[in-house]
């Protein structure tokens, strides 16, 4: 009895160890990547043709003030030490002060980020809900008219400049048809009515039960979110299609048919089950891409998110803000990759 307990325990440990090891390796490689990312942004910040001291003290400061600030910023130290300082600050969530409004960059980012998150999440949701079924159907009915449509949809998505499509959307649906709200997150009349809990207006207004604000926010977000959703749909439907094509030609699909299953059961119960993990990776990637794609979209729609923040900072040479924003977006990118990698390890039985 004791013996069997013992062997079972050993078996459990044996099956866990390589899994855990994989996770540790993944975490290790991610931290190296993060370090590299910080190093690159650090270097970019140092090669800037802008003198950070001058930006703080102004043109007419005396030489002694200049020197004091120079030392205070640690610019007299060797580059490596400066990098360590930078690392230390970033690890504490300190990206320095914005040169434009003299507020901590981290506070600014925390304020604008929910707007981007709301937009990108809704966009991904649209992309997944439409793109996955479209990809599956295109694969199952390969060569049919629906497959052709899926192909055209993806091709156009890959070829269309997003900012231009956004402009055209504004022109048609806002300017001509008046179906949606214009730029911004809310009409002026609705602003600052509901308390900000999450910073995502759709959620905040739903919590507050203020459906007037919700409707208005929805009319503003739906166009940019659909736009982002379209790009995510183009990518997700193509990937889903090629994953499904691979699975549908697999022998276990024939097995399922031999068992007497209906095509629907074969497709969703067997083939689709095999692409779920791959699909999650693709969705995570597309989500990360949307966070980035929102840079241009946010500008078109005057959406006060991180994309607008970085670009505004860029045009006014506010380097702390640019690098802070870049680091945050980069870290989210890496975390999403890590997340999908871990999911892969946990949910695919073959990876253990």
């Amino acid at each position: 009895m004791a013996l069997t307990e013992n062997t079972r325990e050993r078996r459990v440990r044996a099956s866990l160890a390589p899994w855990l090891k994989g996770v540790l390796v993944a975490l290790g490689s991610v931290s190296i990547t993060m370090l590299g990312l910080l190093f690159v942004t650090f270097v970019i910040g140092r090669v800037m043709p802008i003198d950070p001291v001058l930006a703080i003290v102004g043109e007419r400061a005396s030489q002694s003030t200049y020197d004091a600030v120079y030392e205070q910023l640690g610019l007299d130290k060797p580059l490596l030490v400066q990098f360590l300082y930078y690392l230390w600050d970033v690890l504490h969530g300190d990206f320095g002060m914005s040169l434009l409004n003299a507020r901590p960059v981290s506070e600014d980012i925390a304020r604008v980020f929910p707007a981007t998150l709301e937009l990108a999440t809704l966009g991904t949701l649209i992309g997944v809900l439409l793109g996955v079924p479209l990809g599956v159907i295109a694969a199952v009915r390969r060569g049919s008219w629906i497959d052709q449509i899926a192909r055209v949809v993806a091709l156009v998505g890959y070829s269309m400049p997003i900012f231009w499509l956004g402009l055209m959307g504004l022109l048609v649906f806002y300017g001509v048809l008046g179906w949606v709200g214009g730029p911004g997150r809310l009409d002026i009349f609705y602003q600052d009515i509901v308390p900000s809990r999450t910073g995502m207006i759709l959620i905040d207004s739903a919590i507050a039960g203020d459906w007037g604000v919700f409707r208005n926010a929805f009319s503003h977000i739906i166009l940019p979110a659909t736009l982002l959703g379209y790009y995510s749909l183009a990518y997700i439907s193509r990937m889903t299609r090629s994953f499904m094509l691979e699975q549908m030609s697999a022998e276990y699909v024939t097995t399922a048919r031999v068992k007497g299953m209906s095509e629907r059961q074969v497709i969703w119960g067997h083939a689709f089950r095999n692409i779920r993990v791959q699909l999650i990776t693709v969705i995570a990637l597309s989500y990360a891409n949307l966070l980035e794609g929102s840079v241009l979209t946010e500008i078109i729609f005057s959406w006060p998110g991180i994309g607008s923040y970085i670009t505004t900072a860029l045009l006014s040479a506010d380097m702390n803000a640019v690098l802070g924003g870049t680091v945050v977006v980069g870290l989210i990118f890496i975390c999403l990759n890590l997340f999908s990698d871990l999911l892969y390890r946990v949910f695919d039985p073959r990876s253990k």
Partner: protein
Amino acid sequence: MNLLDVENLWVKFPTRQGVVEAVRGISFSLGRERLGIVGESGSGKSMTGRAILRLIRPPGMIEADRIALEGQNLLDLSEKDMRTVRGERISMVMQDPKFSLNPVMRVGDQIMEAYLLHNKVGKAEARKRSLEMLDAVSIRDPERVMRAYPHEVSGGMGQRIMIAMMLIPNPQILIADEPTSALDVSVQRQVLNIMDDLVKQRGMGLIFISHDLNLVSEFCDRVLIMYAGRIVEVCDADKLHQATHPYTRGLLNSLPRLDQPRAKLEVLSRDPAWSEAPSVGGRA
């Protein structure tokens, strides 16, 4: 009445270079017996098995005067009715369990699914039947195997699981498409014996598709020899060595035999006339 009657079966695939005819007008019947179909790759033997189950996917086409299961022409059935034939009345074991089992589903779920599709019972009952079935294919620790994923079991065990899964709805006909070709030689015989026993016990008809003449002659009652989509010869398995068709003779002579060692094996030389000659009827 015969279990299965196939009359003038054609399988065609339109391609850019024209229509490829994989099976060209063959006829045969199957009783409660073990029928072997032998041929080289591309001879249409696998396509024949799949055509019976109507598993040829478009653009491939199945044409036949009749594919009758106990008098019922399967070609007249709707796709929905055909699904009650698949699994429940005719089943198929494929070549390699590595590919024919769903890699991300537990073995138990896959077997139970096969049972639940054709029997309106609860999960507990399905589970009980699955365990019995695994036991019937000589799997010693069925509880553990039920929980395993396909990549965690060996090839021989995988194929026994496949047999269990295909026999659990209790079909009348089992089509075994090269069921041991992907297995180690050491377990081939074991798997075949298990399959053979179950088929005999249940009084089923077996269509055993293989390229291995010796194996087929040993495990079957009757053998069809296929060449280029046609049946070139039909003979009783125990009289295979008296076969007359030059193709069959060629196949037999190209195999090494322990009782008649030779310095040099014959190389099969083909006669284009073989593929032009009309099919031999495979009726019992």
